[in-house]
């Protein structure tokens, strides 16, 4: 999986560092002062590095918990994200990470306790007014990435105000009244590295003791052994992403097969964990029939009545990340298609997009209650949607 382990001098004696270095004792182990020396170097080639990525063990200093931009989250004034890891061990061609980071190495911040303290502090702070969150987060690259993402949003009003997310009536009630939400798995896959990172092993019990805080783990991984050893908790949602079989085969490199992901999700659901489905990214070549077949397969394995939520989202990427990805993959058909750019976000063109989406949703609604569904859309999308 990795070709070398870098570790910051500051975490040399951290127990997690020790455990990981022991695990990878046969790999080169290289000490550095700060992870940015390696991760943020100029002129690196993400695509070349992805062939031989390294793992970097580091300490996260500032910015451990960040507000999700306005229009996102179960509650617009109480949605946050935190990233214990940068980059993903999978290699999905549509992923924005390849356009966002200069390096394909994975950074694991081992100081989970500091993340937990930051989350605790956030929980004790009064929530920011919604408009402040939006204003504070609208102009950075980071917030552009977030707001063009598909983090589940439950705030219908703000979503419509901002044009970020479209929620059918009733979807906002899914988790209404819940506490603040903390999204993981944004700069990485939450569970894919679990056997090494022990991320969920640490954080799920931590959230179990704080029932008003909600944790969402976003993943394509089948590494659920750790979760199954724990008692399920209602405030930890495991959200799994799916595309059609053809899209998965072509664009999702190193990702467990759909059937295996479904088997894992079913085991979680049967064990009592809240699970959610994210059908994304929807790519123009995905035919509604193929999506329908996927839905048949998914809902043959899962109980739709016990799903936490279901969402879909189009492929979209901040324009500067898209440009970077195109430079890296000029031979990639995905990036060679017709695109449109609105407000700095690139999407792939579909001649009849809304009708196409409606067809897909119609197929989906044969299986689920539409009130349990929401569709993520481009930031500041025109009102046509």
């Amino acid at each position, binding site marked *: 999986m990795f070709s070398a382990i870098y570790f910051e001098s500051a975490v040399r004696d951290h127990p997690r560092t020790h455990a990981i270095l022991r695990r990878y004792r046969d790999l080169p182990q290289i000490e550095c002062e700060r992870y940015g020396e390696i991760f943020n170097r100029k*002129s690196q080639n993400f695509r*070349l590095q992805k062939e031989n990525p390294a793992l970097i063990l580091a300490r996260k200093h500032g910015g451990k918990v960040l507000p999700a931009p306005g229009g996102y989250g179960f509650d617009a004034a109480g949605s946050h994200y935190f990233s214990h890891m940068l980059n993903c061990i999978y290699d999905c061609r549509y992923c924005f990470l390849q356009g966002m980071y200069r390096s394909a190495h994975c950074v694991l911040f081992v100081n989970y306790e500091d993340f937990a303290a930051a989350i605790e502090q956030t929980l004790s702070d009064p929530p920011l007014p919604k408009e402040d969150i939006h204003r504070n987060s609208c102009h950075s690259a980071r917030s552009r990435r977030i707001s063009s993402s598909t983090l589940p949003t439950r705030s219908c009003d703000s979503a419509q105000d901002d044009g970020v997310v479209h929620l059918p009536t009733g979807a906002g009630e899914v988790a209404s009244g819940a506490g603040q939400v903390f999204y993981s798995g944004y700069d990485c896959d939450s569970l894919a590295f679990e056997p090494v990172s022990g991320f969920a092993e640490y954080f799920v019990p931590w959230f179990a003791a704080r029932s008003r805080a909600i944790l969402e783990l976003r993943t394509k991984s089948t590494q659920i052994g750790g979760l199954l050893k724990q008692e399920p908790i209602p405030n930890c949602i495991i959200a799994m992403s799916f595309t059609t079989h053809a899209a998965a085969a072509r664009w999702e490199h190193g990702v467990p097969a759909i059937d295996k992901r479904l088997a894992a999700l079913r085991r979680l659901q049967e064990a009592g964990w809240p699970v959610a489905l994210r059908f994304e990214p929807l790519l123009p070549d*995905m035919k509604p029939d193929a999506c329908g077949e996927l839905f048949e397969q998914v809902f043959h394995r899962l109980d739709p009545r016990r799903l936490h939520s279901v969402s879909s989202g189009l492929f979209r990427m901040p324009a500067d990340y898209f440009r970077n990805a195109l430079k890296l993959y000029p031979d990639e058909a995905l990036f060679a298609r*017709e695109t449109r750019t609105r407000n700095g976000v690139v999407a792939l063109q579909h*001649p009849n997009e809304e009708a196409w989406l409606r067809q897909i949703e119609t197929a989906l609604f044969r299986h689920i209650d539409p009130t349990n569904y929401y569709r993520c859309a481009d930031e500041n999308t025109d009102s046509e949607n």
Partner: protein
Amino acid sequence: MNAMSEHRPLTASKGNGATVNLAVAHRLEAERLIQWFGLAENLPRGEFPWYGNEDGLSLVVTGSGVERAAAGVRCLHERRPGCAWLNLGIAGHGAAAVGTGLLIHRIEDRSTGKRHWPSPTGLKLPGGNLITVSEAETDYAEDAAYDMEAAGFFAAASRLVAPDLVLVYKIVSDNPEHPLAGFRRGQVPLRFGARESEIRTLVAHLRERGSRFVRWHSLPTEYRQLLGKYHFSVTRKSALAKLCRRFTALGLEQKIAVLASKRYHNAGALMAALEAELAGAVAPGGTGSKESAS
């Protein structure tokens, strides 16, 4: 990437451009490389002796020191640009046994404090850190290799190509038990000879990665033909390259060949025809997409 350990002849670079450039400080360090890879000296020699073969492998003898190493890299680049670079040489070491070969993970320039980080290769070769010093090290204070060129080499080469295609490999020539004073120059080819397998592996690794890199960014032959047929501004030339890459990425090589064989009033008309063809072909259900429908 570990499958490249067996020796194999280098594939010809003609056409694919996957050139690998080697840099050594001294002629003695070049001796075995010249022999193994069939390198011939290119004349006139100029400031830096340089060698090459028809398989796209070149070598420059830079002389000693950071500045000479950097200048030698730049000089070879002007003569024969490389897709990838490898610095080879002997080095002192604070702990490793004489004769040990080390793929360098971290380079520290002792005079400036600047550090460089050659990317890991995935090859199962012994590795280590290196300190580039301005004078031969005799104290061997740290568990690291000591040389006089790598920092200059890496800084210069990684400005020319992605740093992921720049490597440094050192063979330990002296250490506290066998200090530099007792080292004889004639031992250099012998030390290299004992590490032939590793050196060939590294060259093959860089060639393979370099070839992939070139392939990713290659343009169809029609691109050159069209540049010869029409007048393109610099901006249009870049736009043409992008269009050609899109055709290739979408599996539409035949269509671009057909379009390129037609006659257009000027470059603008050609570009418009290419864009129209792409727009029709890449729409879902269009004929051009090579993605199988889901």
